[in-house]
């Protein structure tokens, strides 16, 4: 009887130990006392294989850190800080002349570029497209391998999308968007 009870207790301890021990590598969300955490499956890896934007000779890609970009292109004209609910990190919007860069926290990058939005014709994509170009000019520059929905032409490449919002047959907005961070 005693032996059996001891074995039973051992089984319980082993079960509990295995529950505890197997957890090292697969924490999916909550990180301790605050119930917060990241989404490992959707986290950018710090490199981008998609379309890139260029400003002052610097290539800017979504899913990469903002800090090295700022070092090269200089400080923005304004910066807006949007802390997320419940301490889940802070989004930033950096405004430059003719475009803005949005960042979000990612697992390995504190401020990862989530989107680059061209808002005026002061700047253009490396392929020569900006606000006011026609849909045909976008097709000539980027080809016809795109999807279209509600006036948004979407070119998917790697872990990002390049969107052209067309209104009255001209480009109204150009958006480099991370798949993981938007």
């Amino acid at each position, binding site marked *: 009887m005693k032996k059996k009870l001891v074995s039973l207790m051992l089984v319980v301890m082993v079960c509990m130990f295995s529950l*505890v021990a197997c957890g090292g590598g697969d924490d*999916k969300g*909550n990180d301790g006392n605050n119930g917060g955490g990241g989404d490992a499956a959707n986290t950018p890896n710090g490199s981008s294989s998609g379309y890139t934007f260029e400003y002052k000779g610097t290539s800017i890609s979504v899913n990469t850190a903002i800090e090295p970009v700022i070092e090269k292109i200089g400080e923005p004209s304004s910066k807006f800080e949007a802390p997320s609910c*419940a301490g889940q990190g802070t989004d930033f919007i950096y405004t430059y002349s003719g475009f803005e860069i949005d960042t979000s926290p990612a697992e390995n990058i504190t401020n990862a570029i989530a989107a680059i939005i061209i808002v005026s014709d002061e700047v253009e994509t490396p392929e020569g497209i900006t606000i006011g170009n026609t849909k045909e000019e976008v097709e000539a520059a980027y080809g016809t391998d795109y999807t279209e929905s509600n006036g948004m032409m979407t070119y998917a490449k790697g872990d990002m999308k390049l969107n052209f919002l067309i209104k009255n047959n001209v480009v109204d907005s150009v958006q480099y968007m991370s798949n993981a961070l938007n």
Partner: protein
Amino acid sequence: MKRKKIFWRRFLRVTVSGIIICSMLFLLQRLLVPKYSVGTQDGAMIAEYYDDAPKHNLIIIGDSEMYENISPLVLWQNYGINCYIRGSAQQLIWQSCYLLEDTLRHETPEAVIINITSMQYAEPQKESYNRMTLEGMRWSTSKVKAIFASMTEEESFWEYVFPLLRYHSRWNDLSDDDFRLMFSEEPVSLNGYMMQVGVKPAENVPEGRPLADYTFSDTCYEYLDKITALCKEHGVELILMKSPSVYPVWYDEWDAQMKEYAQKNQIKYLNCVNNDEIGLNFRTDTFDGGLHLNVGGAEIYSNFLGKWLQSETGISDLRDDAELSKEWEQKAADYDAKKSEKYKELAMDSDDS
């Protein structure tokens, strides 16, 4: 006779062993689950609701734009509205729907305010936000439905049933608080309101990114329809509300859709974005650059809201209820104490920096 004795002995042994195993797993679970009353507190309010007497004539359901922007004490002191905010971080519209269903099982308020910021989200966003809403709900069919509607691809229903499966890896992050708060968490809110006292002016607010399609998803409308139907079924006045904030952008196209929905369903819609009547100053009344209000802003906004509710819905003034008045006396004292404590902490933080 001997066989019977052996059977009962074995039965007893199995039962006792079962009880021991279950108790140990239960204790382990209580120890390992995150304690929302320390650290990030935004997941605590959903559970705190059940501790308040179900005699509210106003229930407010929504995300941080509700639980950080509205002071139930002002609604009580100035208008006699006994309100509770069932708020949680980035609460989605289907979660609001099932929280309403859950609430109506406990009480039938005169009016319900739903924050419609969540209409922009057609998909579950993040596990940690889901958990801040769902873990605090008491078990019911509403909670089960809310879990299934909310789960991201990586989540499992069983991890909600047995949180130990989800949190077992917290064993090396355990702190003294996990032991101290194993069985009873400290309340963090006053009737669902989470007080903030800092000041950070709204500056450089960006314009919203142009969207290809501003139409809210069918899924969101489906749940809004359910909310409308639930309120009608229970004779509760439904108010759709957009809380004041400067960011994220509440597009005019979204506003138009909500106006149209409210008109079609003969319900009220109150859009408080850029509403000068409220009297808010986003240089002084916000703690995070215009996303949410600090306590000063929340009190100004709550005054506006109380007046609006009285004139537009005729909600009852319950200040004649002696029992409620007594409860609110204590709550007012707690509120003032918390306010002083928070301002003291803020002053200390300022001195440190």
